[in-house]
């Protein structure tokens, strides 16, 4: 006569979140400041990013890995962009879609890589989340607060932007 009891995994998720918070909050603040240049807004972006991370904690396997760091920075950048948009709307100014956020220094060895690095933050983020982090459309939609159709369109437009950049710059 056997009884099987399920292994409890949830306490690991709790620990993981705390580790992520202690390890990356400074990095996230730095990433948010690159876009917002305002400490209070940057802290808001970090907090909102952690809310997203908490809701999607299962997506993160290892706390200390390049993929996790990328994932966290991308989420933070997008939350910073949301705050930036809200602030610009309040100020009555147009949102600068070309906002590059963190601009990686590329060696210029690959046209596609360089074009990707030049994309605006939002477009670059969805491609990185899709093709580097490996998230599906629904997961990206949940993370960025968009619906799935909007994410699909954004991915398609981002790819078109890549082709256009590569053609214009002859990359």
């Amino acid at each position, binding site marked *: 006569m*056997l*009884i*099987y009891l399920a292994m409890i995994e949830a306490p690991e998720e709790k620990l993981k979140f*705390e580790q992520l918070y202690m390890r990356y909050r400074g990095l996230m603040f730095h990433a948010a400041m690159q876009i917002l240049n305002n400490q209070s807004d940057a802290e808001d972006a970090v*907090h909102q990013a952690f809310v997203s991370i908490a809701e999607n904690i299962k997506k993160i396997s290892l706390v200390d890995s390049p993929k996790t760091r990328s994932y966290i920075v991308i989420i933070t950048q997008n939350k910073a962009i949301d705050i930036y948009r809200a602030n610009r709307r309040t100020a009555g100014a147009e949102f600068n879609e070309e906002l590059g956020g963190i601009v*990686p220094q590329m060696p210029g060895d690959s046209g596609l890589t360089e074009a990707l690095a030049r994309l605006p933050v939002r477009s*670059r983020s969805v*491609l*990185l989340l899709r093709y580097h982090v490996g998230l599906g459309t629904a997961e990206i939609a949940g993370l960025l607060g968009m619906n799935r159709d909007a994410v699909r369109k954004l991915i398609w437009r981002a790819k078109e932007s890549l*082709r256009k950049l590569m053609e214009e710059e002859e990359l």
Partner: protein
Amino acid sequence: MAKYSFTDKELSYASAYVANAMLASLPAPGYCCHRFSSEFERKMALLCAKVKRRAAVISFFRAAAAVFLCILIGAVSWLAVDVDARAAVQKWVSEIFDDHVVYRFEGDADSKLPVYEITWLPEGFELMESHATPTHSSVYFSDSNGNLLSIRYGIMHDGIIIEFFDPTHENQAETFACENVSINGMDGKFYSKGSGSNTNNLIWFDNNLGIYFSINSSLNKSVIMHIAQCLELANSTN
């Protein structure tokens, strides 16, 4: 392939390269020093507490799910030994073997899961999670005092195989006290928490609709029974 086209694989490689370059343009996590404001620390403390509570809810309900499975087994073994109980819920059981039971629904089953509404909850309980499939629905609540509550219902469909739970097993007999109950005219069992558990468990069956229900909670019996009695059919299908 056209000059300015690329495959998904190429885009994957480029994404990895850009992601790493993006990280390289930032300081290492250990070198990002910022003294966060007290308002930020307060908001993060609340968020961490919420994550801890959610984790506790999940832990509790995973343990309760195992208990629930044991109780379903127990219900079936109860049915195996109690002729009257078997007669009452004979639609549910068709074959009992030495070491397991095939828990079947016999007759014309309504294959669509009805929707039930929780019309009463104790004050202070917040929804933490909910899950729904075509055959099963579950919701999880907790309050600020750490009390936890799960409410589940589902279709007892053909072919569920459950291992026996032996109520006379010495560990189990010490864990739960069990009594027959009735929820709005439906037969059920209430398993009270013993010394090794912080969970009370209620299970009951609607034989007409082919639905089982369970409530698992650290709340006391009278509260759990009241919640069960206030579970009402919203509409006929999901």
